């Protein structure tokens, strides 16, 4: 169990670093989802299934989805400006 926790802890660290290092917002949004899944798995391994569920639905589903939609929104605005 400790080995699983250690591996997941490292995975969360790596995923978090990747999110911070990504420069392209689109890539960042996708990586945030991966980071969210890793964090949810860590919570699960630490015997906190409730928190893991919340993390999974918010960190891995809702947050990236909203960021992606916001990005689409911003881009369509830029496109419209370019057209004018």
């Amino acid at each position, binding site marked *: 169990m400790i080995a699983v926790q250690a591996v997941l802890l490292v995975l969360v660290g790596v995923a978090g670093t990747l999110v911070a290092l990504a420069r392209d917002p689109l890539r960042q949004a996708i990586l945030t989802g991966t980071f969210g899944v890793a964090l949810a798995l860590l919570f699960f391994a630490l015997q906190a299934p*409730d928190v893991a569920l919340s993390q*999974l*639905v918010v960190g891995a589903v809702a947050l990236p989805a909203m960021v992606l939609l916001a990005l*689409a*929104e911003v881009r369509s605005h830029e496109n*419209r400006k370019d057209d004018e």
Partner: protein
Amino acid sequence: MSRTARLVVFAVGAAGLAAMLAWSFAGLPDFGVYTGRYGRIIAQITEPDRGVTNAVTFTAFDVRAVDTMIEEFIVFAAAIAAVALLRHQRGEPEEEEHPADMLRPKTSPALRVVGALLAGPTVVVALDLVAHGHLTPGGGFQGGVVLAATAVVVVAAGGRVRLPPDEPPLLAEIIHGAGAAGFVLLGLAGLIFSGAFLNTTFAGHGTTGALLSGGAIPLLNVATGLEVAGAIVVILAEFLEQEMLAAEEGESS
């Protein structure tokens, strides 16, 4: 300020931060060691006092139910804010006719198959999470988001997203308002029948482990589930609507 001077200031600050961090990490309890008293008390009274087997739900919907109510209001306010901002941006209703049943640009068959396969199980998982929140991990919040995710799956697979111009996604807004109101009404019921706002004991314990047990906690879970699912669908629908409008304008120009 010269580059060297800035580097010196940064080095001093970073060294100070590193020292403080090292100091505070040294004082942390060991990994996985819990020393608090609150958690132990909660774990002891959850089952005997309320007939609930999920201590986390007991904490969120009974011990700290007011906290949860305010969190619900935050989601509620966020949805309203998103609607207010984005709808304002949409501006004047367009005169052109928009067929109400307009579909998104065609999605790939693979995406549609996966979406169709996922939609049903997702709803079941969401309902299960909400209904058994007081017994097993889960609850209204998680279930609500999963329920909203179903809508996302359907939309992503190419379902209908076009809303009538200047009309809110009415059903989602009613659900989201009803959920928020339901939570407060259940709280008031606690005030009337058991003497304290959000006291959940007025509905009786039931048999521990049964679907209908744990006083008003399952009802609060349902209210939260409706609230959260409705709010997230409202927010996502507003975003999607914006995107659709933009895409259409792009195509026509």
